[in-house]
C-alpha cells in the first residue's frame, strides 16, 4: 500500500463516482438500445380523446384516411377504398411459450394462431366452424367422400406482388409430404392416394394430388373420409399455403434455417409479419391488398406474457384481446365497463385418461365417475362456464348425445362397484398432469378427497411439460393422466384418433391403450358416408360404448372465455376459438 500514489480516500470517492456514472450511462445507453422495438409513431392513448376521432366528421379532421365507416357508402366497396387507420393498434395476448421461428410445417402449439394472421388455407372456418372459402372460392366433395376439388380464387397476389396460383398449393402439399422436411401434417396427408409412396421415396409424384389448371387442384383420398376437411385442427390436412417462388429451391431438410422461415414476410393473409422481439411480442402490419378486404387496423401486436400480467394489461387497457380468461377473473371483470367478456362454447374435453392395461376392469373406472361430484365441481372450478359431457363425442350439434348414463354423483354406488371389482383400498394410484392447467390444480384436492371417501387413494404428481409427455406419450409408464383440450366438438370422428386399436401410443394418439373392435368398425363406418342421418346413428352407438366402458373418464367441456376491449368492433364470436378469424373486419373506436 505504501507504493500507492492515491490515498484510500480518493479511491473510495472514485468508486462512488464510477458506480453512479455507470448506472447513469447504462440508463442512457439502454434507452435507444432497443431500437428494434416499435419503429413507428402514433400512440394509442387509453382514453382516445385526441386520437383520430371515430365515425363523425370524416371529411375534415385527422390524418386518418379512414374511408371505412362514415365515408361515402357509394364508394365503400373493395379493398381499394378502405385503408387501415394509421396508428391503429390492436394488442392480442398470448401465453409466453410462443416461438414464431418454429416453422409452419412443424408448429404444434400456439404458433398456429400466429400463422393464421399471415397465411391462408384453401378453406377456413367461420365463427360457427362452417367451412368458408379462403384461397379456394369453392370446393366440392364427391358423393363417396374420396375426391375433393378446390377452385382457387383468381387475382390473389402474394405481398411481394407475385400472383398466387395452383402451383403454390401443389408445392405446399408436396413439401409437407417430403419426409426430410419433417412436417407434422404428414400423417393426415398420407390419406391422399399415392402419398405414402411419395413420402417413402418410392414415387416422384403424389398420384392423388393433381393440378387440373392454374386455378384448380384435386385431391383424391385412398379411403373415403367425409370429415377430412372438417378436421381443421393443429394437425390439419388443410394446410397453410406457402409461396412456391420463395421456397422452391430450399432444401427440405434444412428448411428451418431458411431465411423465409425465420422471417415469413411474403404472405397472402390479412396481415404481414414485421418482427418478433423475443419474449415480448410479434408485430404485424396490415396487408392493403388482402383479397377479402383491407384490414381497418394498421398494426397488430401479439404480446407474450404470463397470465397474471396479461390480466393486468387487459384491465389497464394495454391489451385489447385476452385469450383464456379464467372463469374466476371473468366474473370479476363483468362489471368493468370498458371490457366485454365473451364465452365461447369450447371444443375440448376435460378428462382423465386411464392406463387400460393396468386397470382393465371397467367397474373401477365407472366407480370413479360416480365418486366425483362433477356438477359441483363445474360450479366451483369453472363458475358454471362449461357443460357436462358423457363421452368425448360432443359435437357438432347433430352429434350431441344426451341420453347416455349421466353418472350422477353417487358415492354409495361407487363403493359398491369397487367392492364388486375387488378393489384393494390400500392401493395408491398415481395421477399426473402437465403443470400449468389452472383448472386441474383447482379440482385436484377436491377430487382426491371425494375419492378417498369411497376408498380410492389418489396420489397427485404433476410434472412439467416435457417430463409429462415422456411419461404419458413417448415412453408410457403412467396410471392416470389428466388433461384438457382437443377439438372433439368439431366432428365426431376426431375421437377415433384417441380410441382406435391401431393408434396406441407411442405410435398414435391412443394414450389409454383401449381396444374395442366394435368401436373401430363404427368409426370406419362414420367416416365413409356423407349422409348425416346415417352418421348420427353410427356415432350414437359409438358414444354409448365410450360412455359404458369409460376408457377415459370424461368430465366436462369448458368454455373458452375471451376478454375483449369495448373499443374493438366487428368481432363475430361463435364456437370458433380462433376469435380473429375475421380480423380484417375489425375496427377500433
Amino acid at each position, binding site marked *: 500500500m505504501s507504493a500507492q500514489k492515491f490515498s484510500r480516500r480518493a479511491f473510495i470517492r472514485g468508486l462512488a463516482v464510477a458506480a453512479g456514472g455507470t*448506472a447513469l450511462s447504462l440508463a442512457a445507453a439502454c434507452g435507444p438500445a432497443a431500437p428494434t422495438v416499435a419503429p413507428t409513431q402514433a400512440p394509442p392513448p387509453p382514453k382516445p380523446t385526441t386520437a383520430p376521432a371515430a365515425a363523425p366528421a370524416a371529411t375534415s379532421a385527422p390524418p386518418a384516411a379512414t374511408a371505412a365507416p362514415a365515408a361515402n357508402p357509394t364508394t365503400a366497396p373493395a379493398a381499394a377504398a378502405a385503408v387501415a387507420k394509421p396508428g391503429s393498434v390492436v394488442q392480442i395476448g398470448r401465453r409466453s411459450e410462443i416461438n414464431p*421461428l418454429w416453422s409452419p410445417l412443424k408448429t404444434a402449439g400456439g404458433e398456429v394462431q400466429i400463422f393464421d394472421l399471415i397465411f391462408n388455407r384453401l378453406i377456413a372456418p367461420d365463427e360457427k366452424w362452417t367451412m368458408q372459402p379462403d384461397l379456394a372460392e369453392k370446393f366440392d366433395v364427391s358423393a363417396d367422400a374420396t375426391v375433393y376439388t378446390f377452385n382457387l380464387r383468381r387475382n390473389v397476389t402474394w405481398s411481394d406482388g407475385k400472383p398466387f396460383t395452383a402451383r403454390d398449393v401443389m408445392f405446399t402439399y408436396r413439401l409437407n409430404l417430403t419426409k426430410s422436411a419433417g412436417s407434422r401434417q404428414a400423417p393426415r396427408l398420407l390419406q391422399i392416394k399415392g402419398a405414402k409412396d411419395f413420402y417413402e421415396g418410392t414415387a416422384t409424384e403424389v398420384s392423388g394430388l393433381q393440378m387440373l389448371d392454374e386455378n384448380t387442384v384435386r385431391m383424391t383420398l385412398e379411403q373415403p373420409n367425409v370429415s377430412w376437411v372438417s378436421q381443421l385442427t393443429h394437425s390439419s390436412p388443410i394446410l397453410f399455403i406457402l409461396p412456391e417462388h420463395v421456397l422452391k429451391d430450399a432444401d427440405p431438410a434444412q428448411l428451418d434455417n431458411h431465411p423465409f422461415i425465420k422471417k415469413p414476410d411474403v404472405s397472402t393473409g390479412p396481415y404481414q409479419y414485421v418482427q418478433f422481439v423475443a419474449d415480448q411480442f410479434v408485430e404485424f402490419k396490415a396487408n392493403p391488398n388482402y383479397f377479402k378486404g383491407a384490414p381497418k387496423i394498421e398494426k397488430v401486436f401479439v404480446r407474450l*406474457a404470463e397470465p397474471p400480467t396479461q390480466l393486468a394489461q387487459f384491465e389497464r387497457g394495454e391489451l385489447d384481446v385476452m385469450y383464456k380468461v379464467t372463469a374466476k377473473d371473468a366474473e370479476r371483470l363483468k362489471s368493468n365497463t370498458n371490457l366485454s367478456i365473451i364465452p365461447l362454447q369450447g371444443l375440448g374435453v376435460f378428462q382423465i385418461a386411464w392406463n387400460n392395461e393396468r386397470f382393465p376392469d371397467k367397474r373401477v373406472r365407472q366407480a370413479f365417475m360416480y365418486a366425483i361430484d362433477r356438477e359441483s365441481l363445474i360450479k366451483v372450478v369453472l363458475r358454471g362456464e362449461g357443460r357436462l359431457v358423457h363421452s368425448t363425442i360432443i359435437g357438432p350439434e347433430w352429434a350431441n348425445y344426451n341420453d347416455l348414463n349421466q353418472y350422477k354423483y353417487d358415492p354409495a354406488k361407487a363403493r359398491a362397484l369397487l367392492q364388486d371389482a375387488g378393489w384393494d383400498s390400500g392401493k395408491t394410484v398415481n395421477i399426473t398432469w402437465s403443470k400449468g392447467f389452472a383448472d386441474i390444480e383447482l379440482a385436484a384436492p377436491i377430487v382426491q378427497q371425494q375419492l378417498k371417501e369411497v376408498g380410492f387413494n389418489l396420489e397427485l404428481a404433476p410434472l412439467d411439460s416435457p417430463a409429462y409427455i415422456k411419461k404419458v406419450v413417448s415412453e408410457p409408464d403412467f396410471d392416470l393422466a389428466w388433461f384438457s383440450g382437443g377439438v372433439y366438438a368439431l366432428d365426431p370422428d376426431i375421437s377415433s384418433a384417441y380410441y382406435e386399436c391401431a393408434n396406441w401410443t407411442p405410435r398414435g394418439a391412443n394414450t389409454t391403450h383401449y381396444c374395442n373392435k366394435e368401436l373401430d368398425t363404427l368409426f370406419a363406418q362414420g367416416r365413409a358416408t356423407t349422409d348425416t342421418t346415417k352418421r348420427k346413428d353410427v356415432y350414437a352407438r359409438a358414444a354409448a360404448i365410450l360412455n359404458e366402458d369409460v376408457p377415459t373418464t370424461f368430465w366436462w367441456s369448458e368454455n373458452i372465455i375471451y376478454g375483449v376491449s369495448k373499443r374493438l368492433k366487428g368481432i363475430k364470436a361463435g364456437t370458433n376459438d380462433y376469435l380473429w378469424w375475421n380480423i380484417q373486419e375489425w375496427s377500433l373506436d
Partner: protein
Amino acid sequence: MQRYLLRRLLISVPILLGVSIFSFVFIHLAPGDPVEALIDPVMRADLGPEWVAQRRAELGLNQPLPVRYAIWLGQLAEGNMGFSLISRQPVGAQIQERLGPTLLLMGTSLLVAIVIGIPLGVLSAIRRYSILDYVATIGGFVAISTPSFFLGLGLIYVLSVNLHLLPTSGMFTLGVEPSVPDLLAHLVLPVTVLGLGQTPQILRYTRSSVLDVLRQEYVTTARSKGLSDDVVMVRHALRNALIPLITVLGLSLPNLLGGAVITEQIFQWPGMGWLAVRAVNGRDYPLLMGVILVTATMVLLSNLLADILYAYADPRIRYGD
C-alpha cells in the same frame, strides 16, 4: 499482487470447466427433451414416434453425451456458443440482447438499494433503538418477507390498473417511438420490487458494521480530541464501516447478470433470468449452457473483484508477496 491475480485467473479455468461438465450432465438428466417440450401435450399424441425421432436427429440429440459435450466444448473454443434448439438463433446473440436490459434493471435496483440502504443503515446505527431504527428494521423484515410476485402484482394493480400512474409491464410502450422517459416509466415498478428486496440486507450490514466501528478505540480517541460528532463519523468511522460492504456488494454482482426470474416474468422484462427459465422448461441445452457459463464467469470475476477491492480499501489485507 500481480502473482495473486494471475493465480486466481488461472484457477478460474479449471473451475469453469468443472462447472460446465457438471451442468451438462445434470441438465441432461432431466426427463424429456426439447422436441417434446415444443409440442402442445394434447397434440403430441397425433405425431408418430418417427417424426419425433427425426427431429431429435436433426438437433443432434441422438448422440452419446460425451460426444455432445466434446462438440460443445470444441465450438466454445472457437468462440461459438452454439445455436438455441428452440429459436435457432445463436446463443451468444440471444444472451447479448438481454444483457443490456438485465444490467439496467439489476443495476438500477442495486443502486436504489444502496442509496436507501446505506444512509438508513448509518442512521439506524447512530440512533440505535430509536423510532427510526425500529421502523427501518421492521420495514426491512417486511420487505424481505414479501414474495416478489405478490409485491409486483400488487403494485401493478394499485399503481397501474387502478390509478393509471404507470404502465403495467414491458420495457417500452408498443406502437410508439422508444424514448428515455417511456423507458424510465416502465422501469419504476420492477426496480421498486427488486430494490425493496435488496435494501434490507444492505441496511443490516451497514448498521452492524457502523455499530462495530463506533465501538473502536480510535473513535473514542477522535472524540476525546474534541472533534464534533459529524467529523468523527465522516472522517473516521464511516469509511472504515463501509469496507465490509464491499464484500456484500461484490457478492451481489453476479445478480447483475443473473437477473431476477419472477420479477422479469411479472413485468415482461426481457432479462437473463427469464431466458434461463425458458431454457430450462424447453430443455434448450445450448442456451442453458451458455447462460450457466456466463453466470459462472460472472461469479468468479466478481468474487475476484471484491477481493482485490477489499485489499485496496483495507491496508491490513495483503495478498501474495
